[in-house]
């Protein structure tokens, strides 16, 4: 049940911004330097994040990207959804008409997928860039 690197790198890049660049625009070049994620890959990721309304672009010399909402208002769930489209591991969990099999509403397994989706959603929606940044700072401080 793989989660693509683009989703994981998206969260990493935005967490970097929440930690280091919450009040001034930052370029994908800078983030690439600091995180090791390739700039080209970040460009693709940031295009999706901008489209989903999680980032705004600032043009000009001191330009770059800014978080569109505060770190407190940006959940990890919204970041993953921006890249994956959905958090749901089995399509029928959020939409029975997405079921491609003939069992449909006689399916014994659907309740499992609904529960799985809910548990993953609870974890990711319960984390914000702010709560992750705070936990990271605490951890770094403890070392």
């Amino acid at each position, binding site marked *: 049940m*793989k*989660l693509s690197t683009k989703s994981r790198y998206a969260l990493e890049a935005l967490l970097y911004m929440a930690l280091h660049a919450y009040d001034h625009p930052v370029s994908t070049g800078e983030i690439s330097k600091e995180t090791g994620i390739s700039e080209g890959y970040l460009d693709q990721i940031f295009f999706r994040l901008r489209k989903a309304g999680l980032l705004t672009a600032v043009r000009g010399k001191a330009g770059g990207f800014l978080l569109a909402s505060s770190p407190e208002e940006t959940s990890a769930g919204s970041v993953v959804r921006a890249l994956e489209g959905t958090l749901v591991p089995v399509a029928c969990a959020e939409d029975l008409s997405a079921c491609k099999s003939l069992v449909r509403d006689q399916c014994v397994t659907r309740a499992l997928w609904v529960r799985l989706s809910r548990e993953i959603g609870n974890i*990711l929606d319960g984390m914000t860039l702010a709560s992750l940044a705070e936990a990271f700072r605490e951890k770094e401080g403890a070392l």
Partner: protein
Amino acid sequence: MKISTRGRYGLRAMIDLITHAEGEYISLRSIAERQGISSGYLEGIFAALKKAGLVLGSAGSQGGYLPALPADEITIYRILDALESSLSLTEGSEPDAPPLRAFLNKEVWDRIDSTVAGLFDSITVADLIREFENRDRAVNSSGL
């Protein structure tokens, strides 16, 4: 992050086997018909389930399969572990990951992996069947 078709279909097929097995071997063809899955696809799935010790097979004209364990001893984890190449969100350990990435690997992605594995390990096929049957009953009594 998706559960593969193999895992989803295999789980349904395993449940179908358990609900229909009453001593006689169940043919893959009958499962294929009831579940709308191709027999060929089921062959690969049941080879893996057999290897994992979840089903017993018998060849020949009376060929087919039987569950190797009672339904309340077969966890979803065992079935999906036999059919999915990996239940993890990530590729595995990344010992040289920089601090921020290592933090996210541990606190987010590995945490989801644990929760998912825990969920699958705590639910048996018997649980799913019971839940499904109770749901049916709840719906039918709503007209009273």
